[in-house]
């Protein structure tokens, strides 16, 4: 599968929140983010509702816990970047569960923030697109039974299964709806569509 093109976000005046106790790492990260053009605020020990207006959250992976975010654990509505000092497996596991899309190692120095922003944004977008696609596929899976019933109804009028299937596809195209929705329409009409409705 071809990878979708990366979108370079416009970071001018984007809002970043650093959830970390006051520390030189916060200063170094603030310097980087300000140079890039973001507006930066610092929060500790937890994120207030203002986080919902932010575009990026950098959070301390070393002292973090689920209660520090104003959203359901693991379901951040914006890209999240973990600030990792201790590379202990338990802390990395927690960062991932919290929903980290990228990471930056502490101590933060002269660089790294820009790539973390881009990678987090891309991972966040990809996750969102995949979730939407999975939800759509799941819905279509659930409707398999409807499709089988619609094909059976069409085939009952003397068509082969392949012909019935092709007819259903044509109907969906003519009605400009999905295959599954067309099947649902036929099943709902019980006994199949009025063939005359397809003329003209």
């Amino acid at each position, binding site marked *: 599968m071809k990878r979708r093109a990366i979108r370079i976000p416009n970071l001018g005046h984007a809002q970043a929140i650093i959830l970390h106790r006051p520390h030189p790492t916060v200063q170094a990260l603030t310097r980087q983010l300000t*140079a890039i*053009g973001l507006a930066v605020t610092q929060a500790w020990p937890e994120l207030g509702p203002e986080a919902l207006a932010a575009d990026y959250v950098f959070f301390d992976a070393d002292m973090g816990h689920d209660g520090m975010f104003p959203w359901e654990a693991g379901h951040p509505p914006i890209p999240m970047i973990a600030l990792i000092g201790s590379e202990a497996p338990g802390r990395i596991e927690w960062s991932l569960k919290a929903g980290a899309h990228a990471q930056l190692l502490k101590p933060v120095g002269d660089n790294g923030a820009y790539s973390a922003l881009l990678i987090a944004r891309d991972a966040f977008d990809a996750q969102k697109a995949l979730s939407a696609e999975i939800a759509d596929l799941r819905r279509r899976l659930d409707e398999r039974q409807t499709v089988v019933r619609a094909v059976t109804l069409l085939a009952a009028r003397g068509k082969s299964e392949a012909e019935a299937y092709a007819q259903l596809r044509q109907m969906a195209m003519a009605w400009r709806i999905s295959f599954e929705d067309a099947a649902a329409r036929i099943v709902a009409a019980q006994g199949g569509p009025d063939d005359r409705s397809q003329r003209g």
Partner: protein
Amino acid sequence: MVVKRRIELGLLFSRTGSYSLISEACRSGVLGAIAMVNADPALDLSFVPVERDPGGNADAYGPLCEEILRDTSARHVVGCITSWSRKEVIPTVEKFGGTLWYAVPYEGFEASDHVVYTHACPNQHLLPLLDWVMPTHGRRAYLTGSNYIWGWEMNRLARERITAAGGEVLGDRYLPIGSREVGRMIEELRFARPDFILNSLIGPSSYEFMAAYRALGLEDAHFRPDRCPVLSCNLTECELPALGQAAEGLVAAGPYFRGVPGWPGAGNFGSSHEAAAFSAVMELARLLAGRAGAENWPLSQLLADRGGIVDPDTHHTVLPVIIARVEGGAFRPIKRWEAVPGDPYLTRSRQVQAPTLRVVS
């Protein structure tokens, strides 16, 4: 007359190798500024140059910069030409708390706490150049570059800008640094017939390409510079001797061209490379003047309360933008903007965003 304190100043330029002409231009800018500072009776400092020559080898820059910062008292180093060498030096200046003054156009997307950028970044060269060429010559482009970050990133940004303007990129082709194999590019151009060419090649590759392109123009009028010009953000007067007749009609963007008054103030410079290196040293002298011991301060402290040309957030500078065409062996300005602040991440100046295209499946 005030007593002058002697301050060692590092110089890190390759005087041999494929981009030595640019090194020499920057080096004369530095030496010119040092001479002026040392002769100024009102300044309480003089600079003592400490030179190292990496000889065009990217891997030599880090160790030689370390030698300057470790073995001498110099905290400030002027130098590097390629972005590749600059990236090699940054960890070293960071480690020793030093500062690199970088006086060459580059591709942006950097704002090190330990670097001052005194030449242009894309909102000061590439973007104005594209904004000029597309209405003037057309929107069908061919992109060339040397195979490293400068060529890649310039062409990526050019593609983004051209596509957003409704234009088209007909091809992009890269050559290893130092390669003269331009035949394939010329063959592609013959078929692609673009409206303009963006040349982000460096050194001998660029000289060879320009010569071959001039020959193509003599053969086919479409490729004459008035119809399909070559654009550059890195060619200046310092490389005109290597280009000769092949430079005629070249259109370049930069903060300075020979004889243009204004920036960087006093003096007449051979090229913008020389001017940007000169202005780096003059600005450093101004920041150090009257502050004994300031030569050991970190850059952030040095920039904190004295104003000047360096933006304390981005460490980039405000520069004029001039678009100029080579006519009769010299650059003639054709368009000029005053005082454009460097915007390395294109977050401050870019108003118009490319339309987000939805993927239709």
